[in-house]
Structure formats: C-alpha cells, structure tokens
C-alpha cells in the first residue's frame, strides 16, 4: 500500500460535451491536507465527487489510499467520506433518523448512543426530532458533518465547509478539521476563503477550467 492518500494520474472527466476536469495529475501524501481553490465551475466539486467515488474519471486513473477508485470502489468506499452541496439526507426523516440510518448501514456498535453523542457535539440535540426539511442551510451542513464523523474516514472531502455557517460555527468547523487531521485523516478542502483554507492545509491545488494552474 502506498503512502499516498490521493494520486491522480492524468484524469479527465466529461459531462456531455464539456470537460469538467482536463488532464489533471497530482498527489497527496497520507496525513497531509490539500486546499482546492478556483472559481465557480472550475471543477472543484467534480474533483471531490470523483475522489469520493460518486463519479469516475472518463480517462486516466485515480488512486485513493492505493485503491483504484473505479475498479476497487467497494474496498475504498468505507474509508472516504464527502460533505458536499447535496447533503445526501432524506428531507422527510428527522436528523436523528437520518444519522441512525447511516449508523446502521455502517454497522456501528450501539448506534443510538453514538447518534446522540454526535448530535450533541454538532449542537443539534434540540432539533434531533424535527424533519430535515425544516432545517436551515447551516444546520444541514452540521448534520452532514455529523454523518462524516460517524464514518471516521481516512480521507475526508469537504466542499465549502464554511459556507452557510455563522462565525461561531465556522470556528467550530476549523476545530473539527484540526481534530480530524490530528487523527491522521487527510482532508481535502474546497473553499473560496483562501486565508482560512491555507491556515488549515499544507498543500494547494488551484483549478481553472478543470486544469491545474499555479495560483495568481
């Protein structure tokens, strides 16, 4: 097993006739964290989706934790987690039910108590039994983070984690990311808040039109 968390070898991704990612190569050592920057539509979200195995490169090879993301997706999936714009939650279930569901799918021991603990940690205990449909954007993001923490991944992919959070929540998010990193988790962070992002990560990848360019 290589010591690389993510290794992209000349990957490209096409949506219809448009190339969201073009000829991208980079690598990220395990335990280190990466900041993804770029304008809207530059391919950040697509790249995160590809690393999380929600999508696969049209051409090229992507290895995450040494597993080929396409061919060995089943072995890889338990170790990566994505928090994205789409929260993956069922709108009609409560926060607790949503979390409990993923806990059961993950085979977590004593799911009920770990759900309770996580909701408390994310400050959602008081709303645990209301449907996600009634949640604000910030609360949804917290719930998505709780789901990621439940999985305890080796590679955590965060798409705009500070968006929609109030200053206090933003600080808490920073602390959470540092906690994850302290456990040896590689964090891939896509954000427009470059200063904040740089303070949390060791490496940076700037995308423009799906290509890697040096940041200006």
């Amino acid at each position, binding site marked *: 097993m290589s010591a690389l968390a993510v290794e992209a070898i000349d990957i*490209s991704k*096409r*949506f*219809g*006739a448009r*190339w969201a990612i*073009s*000829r991208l190569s980079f690598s990220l050592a395990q335990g280190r964290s990466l900041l993804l920057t770029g304008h809207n539509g530059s391919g950040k979200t697509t790249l995160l989706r590809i690393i999380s195995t929600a999508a696969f490169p*049209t*051409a090229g090879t992507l290895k995450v934790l040494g597993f080929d993301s396409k061919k060995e997706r089943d072995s890889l999936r338990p170790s990566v987690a994505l928090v994205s714009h789409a929260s993956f939650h069922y709108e009609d279930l409560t926060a607790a039910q949503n979390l409990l569901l993923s806990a059961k799918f993950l085979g977590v021991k004593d799911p009920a108590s770990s759900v309770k603990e996580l909701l408390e940690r994310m400050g959602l205990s008081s709303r645990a039994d209301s449907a996600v449909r009634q949640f604000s954007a910030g609360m949804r993001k917290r719930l998505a983070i709780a789901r990621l923490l439940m999985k305890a991944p080796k590679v955590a992919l965060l798409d705009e984690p500070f968006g929609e959070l109030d200053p206090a929540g933003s600080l808490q998010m920073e602390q959470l990311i540092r906690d994850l990193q302290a456990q040896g988790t590689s964090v891939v962070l896509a954000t427009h808040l470059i200063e904040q992002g740089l303070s949390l990560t060791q490496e940076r990848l700037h995308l*423009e*039109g*799906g*290509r890697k*360019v040096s940041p200006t």
Partner: protein
Amino acid sequence: MPASIPLLLLLALAVMVVVHVVVPKTRPILWKVSAALGLVMLGLLMYLGMFYAPPEAFMSNVGRILYVHVPYIWMAFIAFLMNVGCAFAYLMKKSWVTDALAESSAEVGVLFGAVGVAMGSIWARPTWGVWWDWDPRLISTTVMLLSYVGYLALRSFTEDPERRATWSAAVGILSGVSLPITYYSVRWWNSLHQVQSSTASVDKTMGSVLLWGLVTLLCFLFPFIVKRYEIARARQTAAMELPPLEAPRPEAA
C-alpha cells in the same frame, strides 16, 4: 420462379455482410452494392408480388400484402434482436461500438416495425373487417414497437453519453425480455377468447416470392444499420475527443 434464386441472393448478401465486418477496406463499397441490389429487387418484388404470384386461397388478391408485410416485420424482429444482443454486450463490457450499434438497430427496427404494423392494420381491414384485432402477433409486435419508441425517447432525452449508454442498455434488456412474455400471454389470453386466427397454406410459388421479399428487405436492413451506425459513431467521437494537452490560452484582456 424457383426458390433457389432468392436463396442464392441471400447467400451473396450474407457473404457481403461477413466481408464488410472482416475486411474494413471494403466498407465504403459493400453497402452501396447491397442497397443497389435491394432497389432492383424491390422493383421486381412489385411485379412478383402483385402479378406473378397466384392469388391466395381465401384472401385472394388481398393476400398479396403478405409479401411485403411479413418481410417488414421480420426485419424489425432481426433489428430488435440485435439491439438486445448489443445491450447485453454493453452491460457485460462497456464499448462505444455496441452502444452505437444498439442505437442504430433500435431506430431501424422501429422504422420497419412501424411500417410493418401499419401494413398489418391495412390488411386486417378487408380480411377481418376491422383495423385492429386481438391477435397475439399484432399485440406483441405493437408492444415491442412502443417499448422501443420509449427507448429512443430516453436516448434523445439524455445528454451524457455514458449515462445514456448504460440506461438504454438496461431499458433494451427489459424490453427484450418482455417480448416473449407478451407474446405468450396474449396468445394464451386469446386462446381463452377464441379469436379467429388465419393459417394460410403457402404454396411453392408463394414461398419463393415471400423469400424474395425477405432478401429484398435484408438488402436494405444491412446498409441502413451500417449508415445509422456511422451517424451514431460520428456523434460519439464528436463528444468524446480527449481534451488537448495544452491549456487554451486565456484571451488577452
């Protein structure tokens, strides 16, 4: 006319198809030969079907519709069979070739099927007195046609080539599976309802004219699928060239 003449032509066509697949160099020519042969044969079929062949025993002259109706339906069946094969092949191993072939065979099949069913409906009018009947073949062919119209609609409503290929392969397989079930269930339903069924005795001349019609349309089926396939391939490659190695230079402001 002995049946050996259309059989010989069929053999020639089969050789053409095999050569077309095996020797890529011959591809620009052979489909033209086949289409030209088809045109000549179609002209002769007009004469053979309408004047040379004897009138059918019960349906008399109306029975002459047989020589164009049956070949059309058969071509549709061949094309749809090919579609199911390609769908299976695509799901087993992804390939743009089988995807394009599936698209072309589905469209050609819908064409032949639609014309064939229309003919069947015209034929039903003088023989059964109605435009439509609960004949298992009629129903199952129409159902097949409908499911492939859905298939083509799905293809045209999906932009992403890979999703389109996978989804339509799934739909193709489900449609293909439904066909024999529909046929048997309708026949069964029918046998409980005693609807008339027509079994015509086919004499030798009729058989050879029918065979002539089949070979004629096969001569068209082959170039149709080939040319439609080329259209599908051209669309695929237009959408799928790898991005250039060099980044496009940003325009100077």
